[in-house]
């Protein structure tokens, strides 16, 4: 196995370990787990018994090992608030968040990349300047503000879209989807646009910056000097070279979209993992917090790894140097 993949795996393992440590620390040292389970009025004897059952008297390292092993099997214990297994809660909310994330990423990429290309190629046109103004707003306005603005305009004033919930969802085994119903699409529209705004403008700016940089290179000049048609120069050469770093950035952003979904889900009361996590934070429901953190880390780490592998495939210079290892 090539050396660099081993390095990446090692790094990924470190991240997971660190997150596990932090989650464990949260469990043990923030608040009192015993209180959460039996309440404040329990007798001393009951408490001592609970402590023994939970293994809280064992050495810390042993407790951590137990915690880590259970986490690896996706067992995060029971939620303090709901008295339900955390993994069940997370899984039930996962589809909502993933659908939101994917729809908004598609929106962000589908709009952001063309906008970025346009503003790079036609720098001085009026439309370009308008796009750039829009991009500044998209990057500056906080996600929640955009969400609330959308609610105000589209729900309160125009009454077009619902301001909360997922609409009607269809059960597909353990997955629930809102994308097969009309009300589902109506419900996902505003949250998806809100979540996509920041990503869209970020992608637009990055594509623009990269493309401008590429357009200044010698090989573009040489391509023009060879009389290649504008279409081939701009798309065949410039865009292709721009996409290589942009693709990796987009991949990494998918991870952050899942995190930013917390805010969007809060604004629209979207029943996803993010809202679950937020409630957990507000109510000090540590098991859910820990479970969410670990799940998110796994997702991030996997995405980062895939992006790295993709990058190597796409850039022939890296491929050769890897093969030489």
């Amino acid at each position, binding site marked *: 196995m090539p050396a660099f993949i081993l390095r990446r795996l090692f790094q990924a393992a470190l991240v997971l370990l660190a997150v596990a440590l932090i989650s464990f620390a949260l469990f043990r040292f923030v608040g009192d787990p015993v209180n959460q389970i039996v309440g404040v009025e329990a007798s001393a004897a009951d408490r001592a018994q609970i402590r023994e059952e939970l293994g809280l008297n064992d050495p810390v390292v042993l407790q951590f090992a137990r915690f880590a092993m259970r986490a690896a099997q996706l067992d995060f214990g029971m939620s303090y608030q709901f008295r339900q297994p955390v993994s069940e809660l997370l899984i039930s909310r996962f589809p909502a968040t993933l659908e939101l994330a994917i729809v908004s990423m598609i929106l962000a990429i589908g709009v952001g990349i063309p906008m970025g290309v346009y503003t790079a190629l036609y720098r001085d046109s009026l439309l370009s300047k308008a796009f750039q103004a829009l991009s500044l707003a998209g990057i500056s306005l906080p996600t929640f503000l955009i969400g609330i603005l959308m609610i105000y305009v589209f729900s309160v004033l125009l009454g077009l879209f619902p301001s909360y919930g997922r609409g009607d969802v269809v059960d597909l085994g353990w997955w629930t989807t809102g994308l097969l119903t009309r009300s589902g699409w109506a419900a996902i529209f505003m949250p998806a646009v809100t979540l996509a705004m920041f990503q869209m403008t970020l992608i637009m700016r990055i594509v623009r910056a990269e493309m401008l940089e590429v357009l200044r290179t010698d090989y573009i000049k040489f391509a023009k000097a060879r*009389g290649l048609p504008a279409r081939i120069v701009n798309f065949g050469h410039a865009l292709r070279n721009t996409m*290589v770093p942009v693709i990796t950035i987009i991949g990494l952003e998918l991870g952050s979209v899942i995190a930013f979904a917390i805010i969007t889900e809060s604004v629209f009361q979207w029943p996803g993992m993010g809202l679950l996590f937020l409630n957990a934070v507000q109510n000090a429901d540590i098991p859910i917090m820990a479970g969410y953190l670990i799940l998110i880390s796994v997702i991030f780490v996997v995405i980062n790894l895939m992006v790295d592998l993709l990058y190597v495939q796409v850039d*022939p210079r890296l491929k050769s140097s890897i093969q030489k290892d």
Partner: protein
Amino acid sequence: MQSVLSVRDLRVDFITRRGALHAIDGVSFDIAPGEILGLVGESGAGKSVTGSAVIGLIDPPGKISGGEILLNGDRIDTLPAEKMRKIRGKRIGMIFQDPLTSLNPLYRIGEQLVQTICAHLPLDAKQARVRAIKLLEDVGIPAPDQRIDSYPHEFSGGMRQRVVIALALCAEPDLVIADEPTTALDVSVQAQVIALLKQICADRGTAVILVTHDMGVIAEAADRVAVMYAGRIVEIGPVAEVIRAPRHPYAAGLMGAIPSLTSDRDRLEQIEGAMPRLSNLPEGCAFHPRCTQATDQCRQARPDLNANGAHAVACFLHEGDHI
């Protein structure tokens, strides 16, 4: 015989917020078919800008502000963008200095060759590939049918420049502009690339503008040479004459600064001072502050190239010369 390229009184300005800088200020020359014209001078003299102007690729804030450029008798400096694009590659080719950055690292060289060939010639992809392999063979790439599928970074510097030459010539242009083609190469490889350029252009009857600051390259390859200073040509003539008997004081200084195995000198000659910046050109002849033979006339008026025969000089000292 009609000139392949005819440049008449070309002017190129760069518009800055401090006003217009005259990067090229009235440059005229002709090139015969198959001829190699060297364009030599210091950095900033305007030689690269001349090449870019001829092929129509001057980046803003630069623009052609006067004069004419004629290719085989037709004016090309006023052509609309799409027509000029068709000329590039097909009738005028260009080679740049650094072969590593001239080639797109993500494409195999075969793809880049075929793409260029198909853009200009009515061939399909298969025929274009055959032609590309032949071209690689002509420029001296060993095992061309295999290496055609290699990426640019898999070649050495000299091989890469050969590929660049192949790319510039694949549509059979009448004129090639070579902008410092050897400067980024190892010394040992420079001679090979120059020899290749010379031979391949002779074979195809392609004229060449050879832009460089290296007089050795000029001596080796060029038929005629034009010496540029501060945006103007100060001397132009057959290579052997200009090198052996330069007339313009600046050209003389340049030749004197070349080390020679045969002469008996202890020190290389140096010209005092430096070429003035475009924003700070002196009155009169641009060279007069550094010229040991400057007269009052030199300080007030600018000399033009005297149109006396093949060897012309822009200097008041040689105004009446017949060469």
